[in-house]
Structure formats: structure tokens, C-alpha cells
């Protein structure tokens, strides 16, 4: 009996030792590009459903301007914008999912802040939507400005910059408030709809999107004030400069294409354009693709399959969509907006 037990113990200890040595796989530099190429698809962290930004359509395909960034990266890296695995993440999970390597990039209406850029081991690669925090209230409340919300209850989504901005704003204006924090956006909206709160606050684009989910969207209005800067953009893990460059330039290519008037419709007719900027964008001149570790047609694939920034904007959040958002600050710099990409040269 005793020997039997000893044998068992020894087997266990040897097995644990072996397990220990086998699993010592720590430090080695990461190469996301190689990993995605071998895997055959890009993993992209998106929201759990925000119309216009990342939301499954009636066929179950993900659409939105954040989704278009994922598609652009897949088109640049693999030559096929459908080779993306979308991972829906809530506010709480998003950074951990990126840090741990569960997703290759995060494109999920995430505000670029200094703390997130420097303290979380991630890098933001650009701004695909300039947003700001706004408030939505019932029209029947008779409120015309955020300044009249003293003593109001606010519904917000857990783990967002929204919570902090609201706290700062009410405190600095010497107003009292009660903040009710829900884990999921859907519950936040449902609670606001049920009358738990006087106001619902999030990024203004989100207010327009979520208003569509209310029982009577027309009973609600978005207040004019914007109380914060919310530059939303994609982010990647720190430590792989090449991957960071790819994501940054995949988006920059979409902006440059709009500026140069290159669209998914006319791109093939512009192959022999005399404009040297277009020649460089389409990879017919220079070694930009090679420098990124991609093929020369990287930007051609993006614009052909996904479209330029303007096309993506109008198709997902623009005037003719249910959201009906004007270009506003998200117009190109040449049209008085903020969207500006460094040149490809």
C-alpha cells in the first residue's frame, strides 16, 4: 500500500516538473504580421453593437466605421477585407483583450487619452471619429441646456471616460447629480427608457445611435452642449512597431484617398493617372508596401474593397443613414474639418 502511494506521488511530481519546463514560454518579441499571415485572418476587437460604428446588420455581417478599419487592415495585410474575426468586447474587457493578445487591434469607439496611451501598454494609431460627450433628455422635461440639470439622475455606461467627464462637469459647475452606472450599453438605454434617469450621457454619436433603440425616439432630444473631447480611434499592443505602422497607415490611406478623390468605384480607372500622389497611393511608384512588410497593392486593396474615409462615413453614419450625422468636424481639413493624414511619399 505504502509503495503504491509513493509511486503515485513520484509520478505526480515528475509530471509537474515536466509541465513546468515545457510551459516556460516567456519573453520573445512579438510579430503580429507574421502571426496574422499564418493564421489567415485578423482578429479585431469591436463593440457589442453600436449602430454606425460596429454593429451586425440583418445578414449578421459586421458593419460600421470602426469595422471598416478592421476590414482595411485585413485588406492591406491579407488582400481580402472579409478575413476578419470580430470579437465583441464590453468596456471593461476591451483593454485586457488587446493587452493579452486576444485581438490584434481594437477598433471599438475608444477614446484616445494620455493615460490609456501611456499607462496601459497600448498605442493609439489615429482618430477615425472626432466625438464629444453630450446629453439626451426627454422633451417633456422642458430642459434646454445641460446647465439646467442640477440634481438630475444620469444613466451612464460602466468603465468609460463618460463617468469622469460628467463628474468633472457637474462639480465644476457646482451642480449636484446622481450617477447610475450600468455594465452594458443596452441596459443603460433600457433603464433611461424606463425613466430611471433624467438624462442619458455618452459620446454624442452614441446618443444618436442609441436613440433609435428607444420606444419613442421622437420624445427625446440631444442637448446642444458638448462637455469633452472624445477622439475615437483604433489601438494596438505596444512593442510591435511594424504592426502599429500597418494599422496607422491603413487608416491614413483611406483619408488620403478621399483627399485625392480616389473611391472604390473609380480606382481602376485611375490606375494610369498622371498624378504622382495617386501613383504612390496605388503602389505603382515607391516601396511603401515593402517598407510595411506588405505587397505593393496594399492601399489599392483597401480602397477597392472598403472604400475611402468619406465613403465609409456616408455609408455608416452619414446623412442618408438612420443616424443622420453631418460630417462637421469629421470633414477633411480641406473642407474645414479635422481629418488630416500625413502624405504618402
Amino acid at each position, binding site marked *: 500500500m*505504502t509503495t503504491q502511494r509513493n509511486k503515485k506521488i513520484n509520478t505526480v511530481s515528475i509530471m509537474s516538473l515536466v509541465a513546468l519546463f515545457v510551459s516556460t514560454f516567456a519573453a520573445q518579441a512579438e510579430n503580429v504580421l507574421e502571426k496574422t499571415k499564418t493564421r489567415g485572418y485578423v482578429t479585431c476587437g469591436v463593440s457589442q453593437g453600436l449602430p454606425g460604428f460596429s454593429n451586425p446588420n440583418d445578414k449578421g455581417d459586421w458593419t460600421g466605421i470602426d469595422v471598416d478599419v478592421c476590414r482595411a487592415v485585413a485588406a492591406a495585410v491579407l488582400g481580402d477585407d472579409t478575413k476578419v474575426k470580430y470579437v465583441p468586447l464590453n468596456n471593461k474587457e476591451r483593454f485586457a483583450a488587446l493587452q493579452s493578445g486576444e485581438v490584434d487591434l481594437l477598433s471599438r469607439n475608444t477614446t484616445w487619452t494620455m493615460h490609456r496611451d501611456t499607462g496601459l501598454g497600448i498605442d493609439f494609431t489615429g482618430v477615425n471619429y472626432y466625438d464629444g460627450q453630450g446629453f439626451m433628455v426627454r422633451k417633456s422635461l422642458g430642459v434646454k441646456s445641460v446647465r439646467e440639470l442640477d440634481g438630475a439622475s444620469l444613466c451612464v455606461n460602466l468603465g468609460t471616460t463618460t463617468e469622469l467627464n460628467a463628474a468633472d462637469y457637474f462639480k465644476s459647475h457646482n451642480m449636484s447629480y446622481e450617477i447610475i452606472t450600468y455594465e452594458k450599453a443596452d441596459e443603460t438605454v433600457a433603464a433611461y427608457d424606463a*425613466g430611471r434617469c433624467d438624462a442619458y450621457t455618452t459620446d454624442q454619436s452614441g446618443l444618436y445611435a442609441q436613440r433609435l433603440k428607444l420606444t419613442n425616439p421622437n420624445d427625446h432630444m440631444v442637448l446642444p452642449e458638448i462637455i469633452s473631447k472624445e477622439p475615437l480611434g483604433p489601438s494596438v499592443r505596444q512593442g510591435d512597431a511594424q504592426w502599429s505602422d500597418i494599422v496607422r497607415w491603413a487608416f491614413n490611406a483611406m483619408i488620403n484617398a478621399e483627399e485625392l478623390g480616389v473611391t472604390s468605384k473609380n480606382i481602376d480607372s485611375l490606375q494610369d493617372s498622371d498624378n504622382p500622389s495617386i501613383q504612390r497611393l496605388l503602389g505603382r511608384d515607391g516601396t511603401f508596401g515593402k517598407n510595411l512588410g506588405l505587397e505593393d497593392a496594399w492601399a489599392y486593396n483597401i480602397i477597392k474593397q472598403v472604400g475611402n474615409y468619406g465613403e465609409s462615413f456616408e455609408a455608416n453614419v452619414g446623412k442618408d443613414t438612420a443616424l443622420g450625422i453631418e460630417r462637421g468636424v469629421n470633414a477633411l481639413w480641406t473642407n474645414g474639418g479635422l481629418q488630416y493624414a500625413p502624405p504618402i511619399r
Partner: protein
Amino acid sequence: MFKWLKSHALYWGGQLAVLLCVVYGFYWLIDNTIVNLARQGTASGFGFLGDRSGFGISQTLVDYSEDSSYGRVLLVGFLNTLLVAGVSIFFATLLGFFVGIGRLSRNWLVSRICAVYIEVFRNIPLLLQIMFWYFGVLRNLPSPRQAIDIYGVAFLSNRGLIVPSAIFEAGSGFYIAASLIFLVSLFLGRRWQSKVQIATGRRPRLWPYMMALFVALGAICFAVTGWPFSMTTPELAGFNFKGGVNFIPEFVSLALALIIYTATFIAEIVRAGILSVDRGQTEAARALALPRGLTMRLIIIPQALRVIIPPLTSQYLNLTKNSSLAVAIAYPDIVSVFAGTALNQVGQAVEIIFITMVIYLALSLITSFILNQYNSHLAMRGAAR
């Protein structure tokens, strides 16, 4: 001799080797985490607990504002968890005992109602029940401006149930001391009653003495300090009520769901406990002409408790842990404010989740320690172990 030594050396050697492996395994995990966090460029350590939080919380049992630290957020969340768990445990136990006994009732209607209640509520996932109470009730309540007025003192609306709060002015300490004296006397009086009953077979009357004591204590307090209590009545101001104590809908619906769900399990445990007591005990009590109520209270329940307490402990632990579902309906418990909002602001998931796990572990261990003490106090002396 030699063989003995050999087998023991092998035995202890094996134990030691496994222990070393386990310790090294933990060391490796922790070290790996620290190295990788540093490599990722993520901040680490517990220094953030002293930083300013910068966000508001809807229900706080201690002073808290946006200027308080993350450490304070932890305390607020912890107390909110304790509050909802404590209140729910108390009422779930009460309800569970009644339903458990009712299930065994000879009254057909009572036992059927109890059975239906148990089978319905223990078989619906708790999260759905929480959502049901929250959204179901919330949607049917009016806004604060049309609040349901309960005799002009309390108001029910979709912002919660607002009741007047008591204000303890100077001198109220006298009343508190007097209440304590009264309770202690009541306790001692009852022991005296039992003692006399055992000695003489007659139970002396206690209530005239207690009544006299009550009046005397009250008169003394009133003479010395007057009536040092007052109330603030809630009033509608702007969007919401000001003054008074507000039971927020999140708290009420979470507690309600936890009570109704856990009570079903407690009821079944109580039923099992009662059925485990031998029929002979009841028959013996009947033979002594003991009324049914007293048989239950003095003979059945004390014996049943031995069977009831260990699984009851598990239910208390489950309830405490289930309270973390609060995050779904915005009740500001520790998971919502600390492992939620604070985690997202600070971004140090490893530290924050670690602290949260340690707190739940400590809470559970303390609960089970207390109930184990109570259980060994109840256990049959000299019974087989």
C-alpha cells in the same frame, strides 16, 4: 529496520518534492506575470489606491465624493456588498424557514402554494429574476413629480422609495443606553423564569416587571433630555427629492431577487432538516400532550438545526457571491464600482481583480467560520464524529 527507514524517506521525500513543485509553480506564475506586465509597459503596484477617483457613486454608506481615493471606492463598494448581502441573508432565512415549514403543513393549500413557489423560483436563473424585478417594477412606477404619496411622509417613484430620516440630537445616547438596559434585563429575566420553572415546576410572570421597568426608564430619559429625535421629511426639489433616506430601486430589486431566489433553497434545506428528525420524537411529544407548535419549536427544530446549518452556510456563501450580479442593474457593489469603474480608469486588472477576490474569499471564510462555530455549539455532545 532499514526497510522502514527507506519507505519513510521515500514517503516524506515524495511529499517534499510535490510541495516544492507547487511552491515553485506559484512563484513562476507570479514572476511571469510581473515580468510580462513590465514588458507590456503596464503600470503595476498598489499605489493607485491613494489616487483621486474622480467619479460619483449612487449609494454610499460612508462619506464619499469625486475627490475621494480609489481606496475609498473599495470601501464604499465593500460596504454596499455587505449591506445587500446582510439584508438578503436575514430575510431569505426568515422566508425560507416559513416556506420550508409551510411545505410540510397538513393544510393542502398552504403546502401546495409553498411547493409551487419553490419550484418556480429556484428554477429560473437568478440574473433573469434580477432583471425582472428591476425593469418590471421600474417601468410601472411613476416619475418623481407624480410620485406615489404615502401619507405625506414617504414617496415611491422610479427613483426609489424615499422615507424620512431620523436625526439623533444630543441626549439621544440616554435612550440608546436605556434600550440596552431593557434588553439585558429581558434576557436575564427569561433565564430567571426558566430557573424557577426547573426548580419549582411553575413559570413565574415576567411581564409586569418588564412593563414597570419600561415606564421607569422612559420617564427618566424624558425627564433628563426631553425628546431628542426629529425627522427630515423628503421634499420634491427640481428633478428629485431632497432630504430623507432613499432606498434606490437597484438595491430593492437586487435584494428582492436574492431573497426570493435563495429562500427557495433554504426552504428545501429546512424541510430536509425537519424530515430527518425521527418520527418517534413527534410521537413521544404527542404522548406527553405537548401542543403541536411547542413540539415544533422545542423538539423538532433544535434537532433539525444540526442537519440544516451546514448546507445553510453554503446558501449564505452563494448569496453573498451572487450579489455580484448587481453589476447588471447598476447597484454599486464592489464588482461594479471597484472591479468595474475603478478597473477601467486605472487599467491595473491584475491588482484590482486580486484585491476583489481576496475580499470575497475573506467574506466567505468569515461567514463559514461563524456558522461552523454555531454548528459545533449545536452538535450533539459526545456524538460520533
